[in-house]
């Protein structure tokens, strides 16, 4: 079981996720992993989600407390078992994204980046800094402010086999490209009877920031989730940011990678060797017994902060970062539900029609018999995000509300 660390095999890492059903989970998780396009010959570290094994819970709980002090967190690689793995290097999340992008551009000459201010300016969030100098103007392209058309152009280029990475300076601006993303990006593979694949990556920061105003605090995952044919992933740590970026670029499907404005400066130690994260897999952040908390992106940190309080109060929450917003990793989620029988979803989307709403429906449909109580879903309020700081705080789910919700669920 301890081999989960070094992650030699694709499926091994999943074993540590839950004590029960370990046999099944390995067998079933094998198939999506095997089908995943991985660079031949290179050794890679598969996603070691929780980075630890099934030790008894108290030491883990204490480690969880040490884990989350504030938003700038260090991943718990300090546990004894991990010191034998390669030291890796420390970096911030936007640097991890850049590293992933750069490595893929080095590896495959068909990868190019298009977006506003990605080239000479270096990227509005510095994700593409230095790439234009290294790869030239034809591979890192500064576009005018014309989302509809440059997204369309990225899709057209992808139809011929290029692998563009289209950056929306803020995810909200991609609403202007909705037609291209929905009709062309998502549906062309189907309507052409499989003739064209669209290996495009559309990425950008979204989510509620610090008083950015209503139009710059949009959560587009709720608008895009219905589009058939696309995959959506949300990164939350430097480790999975780099892994998901690389996996998304290598994927033959169109992938939308959601980053969060407030997470760009997270620091973490990540491995030196080449690795990717499975696009369709959820990440087990903290195994537990009492309640399953499903979250993604920034809310993961609110949840972990609440978990600190909950552990002190004697609860044992299992926290899963779902990462894959479309399709949901119902396997990991299902195993968790079967274990804890209580589900809390914490998301940043609005209540109506958000990821949480779909997830609630999916879990109810598939795992209704395993639930002891109805699923609780904490989402942002159905309002445009206000500018005033206090109001903005009330729009989004806060750790205290998560604690209350868990207490209610576990009564």
């Amino acid at each position, binding site marked *: 079981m301890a081999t989960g660390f070094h992650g030699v095999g694709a499926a091994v890492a999943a074993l540590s996720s839950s004590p029960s059903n370990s046999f099944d989970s390995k067998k079933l998780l094998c*198939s*999506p992993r095997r*089908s995943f*396009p991985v660079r031949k010959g290179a050794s890679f570290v598969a996603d070691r989600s929780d980075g630890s094994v099934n030790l008894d819970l108290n030491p883990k709980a204490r480690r969880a407390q040490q884990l989350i002090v504030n938003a700038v967190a260090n991943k718990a690689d300090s546990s004894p078992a991990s010191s034998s793995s390669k030291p890796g290097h420390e970096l911030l999340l936007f640097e991890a994204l850049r590293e992933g992008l750069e490595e893929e551009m080095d590896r495959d000459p068909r990868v*190019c980046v298009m977006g506003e201010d990605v080239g000479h300016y270096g990227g509005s969030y510095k994700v593409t800094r230095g790439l234009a100098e290294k790869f030239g103007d*034809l591979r890192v*392209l500064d*576009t*005018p402010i*014309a989302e*509809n*058309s*440059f*997204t*369309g*152009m*990225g*899709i*057209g*280029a*992808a*139809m*011929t*086999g*290029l692998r563009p990475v289209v950056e929306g300076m803020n995810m909200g601006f991609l609403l202007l490209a909705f*037609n*291209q993303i929905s*009709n*062309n990006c998502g549906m*062309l*593979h*189907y*309507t*052409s*009877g*499989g*003739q*064209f*694949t*669209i*290996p495009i990556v559309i990425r950008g920061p979204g989510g509620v920031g610090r008083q950015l105003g209503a139009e710059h605090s949009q959560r587009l995952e709720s608008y895009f989730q219905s589009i*058939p*044919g696309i*995959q959506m992933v949300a990164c939350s740590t430097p480790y999975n940011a780099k892994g998901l970026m690389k996996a998304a670029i290598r*994927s*033959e*499907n169109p992938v939308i990678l959601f980053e969060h404005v407030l997470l760009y400066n997270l620091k973490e130690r990540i491995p030196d060797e080449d690795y990717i994260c499975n696009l*369709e897999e959820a990440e087990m952040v903290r195994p537990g017994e009492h309640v399953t908390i499903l979250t993604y992106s920034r809310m993961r940190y609110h949840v972990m902060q609440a978990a600190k309080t909950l552990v002190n109060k004697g609860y044992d929450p299992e926290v899963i970062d779902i990462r894959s917003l479309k*399709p949901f990793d119902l396997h990991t989620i299902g195993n968790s539900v079967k274990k804890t029988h209580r589900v809390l979803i914490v998301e940043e989307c609005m209540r109506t029609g958000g990821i949480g709403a779909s997830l609630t429906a999916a879990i109810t449909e598939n795992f209704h018999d395993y639930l002891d109580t109805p699923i609780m879903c904490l989402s942002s309020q159905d309002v445009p995000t206000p500018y005033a700081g206090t109001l903005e705080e009330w729009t989004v789910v806060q750790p205290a509300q998560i604690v209350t919700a868990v207490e209610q669920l576990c009564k």
Partner: protein
Amino acid sequence: MALSYLRSSSSRSVNLLKPLSSSLPLRRPISTDTTPITVETSVPFTSHQCDAPSRSVETNPKELLTFFRDMALMRRMEIAADSLYKAKLIRGFCHLYDGQEAVAVGMEAAVTKKDCIITAYRDHCTFIGRGGTLLEVFAELMGRQAGCSKGKGGSMHFYKKDSNFYGGHGIVGAQVPLGCGLAFAQKYSKDETVTFALYGDGAANQGQLFEALNISALWDLPAILVCENNHYGMGTAEWRAAKSPAYYKRGDYVPGLKVDGMDALAVKQACKFAKEHALKNGPIILEMDTYRYHGHSMSDPGSTYRTRDEISGVRQERDPIERIRKLILSHDLATEKELKDIEKEVRKEVDDTITQAKESPMPEPSELFTNVYAKGLGVESFGADRKEVRATLP
């Protein structure tokens, strides 16, 4: 039928020339003769920000006869599609191209299959021009397995990847940024090929077109934007939709050329010119002045916003097939009878293909879930009742 009547009326006038050339040797219907013939286009080109190409077009008997056969095939195919639609074998949307065939054949004569073509929903004939077969067309229109998109696309989603035909798009104007993306990929791969992005006079007012044009001009992309101006955006005449209906000038800083779209040779000359221009200087706009005889789609009679006199007037004066027929007959490349035989042969071919297409089966239920993702995710998909339609994706 009205068409054959018009045909025979024009041949009567040509018969007067017949005795003079009776001494010439008999020519075969599909001539392999490639002796060059120079023909003048019907009207000179009008240009914007560039020098117009010459009015004299080089062609040869083989090409002219190919034009005739291809256009006759396209015309016959569209009319057959009309009947099939009325027989409810084709459902949904069906946008017919008859009247505009010259644009498709003229363009094909000027380019290679390595150049990319992308167009909107009036794509049946462009697909044939790119090498698509009649069977693929009719099967797709009827939603059968033998269709080019396996029956899952329909009239508006014809694609042929191996000959660089990128469709087939339903949303007005959305194909133009895609086309500029194709041009970008061509430049990226240093292919020395160009992309023709076709759109209509209705789409010419779309913002994304100008956005894409701006980017293409900035990055020097080999993109040729072709406005197939049939003067009506569904029911709205061009003068009611565009403040400036001179679509070839709308590019402003991008050069443009106005072409008589009913003259296949003029189209060929313009496309040849545009290809050379785009490879050297970046984007160019071509405006093809053309006309559609049918309404916008099958649900549009086509006579509420224009008079029947207008339609029949264009058919008499400017019909593309008639022009080529007159050209062939006046240069004595084939006899009247041979041309009629070609048309009969084409008609038979279309009828036979329709019979064959009708026999093609409907897609399997599991096809509902295939091709959603390029690589399936190892999941099992099922329909609403979880029993009837099941598929395990790869």
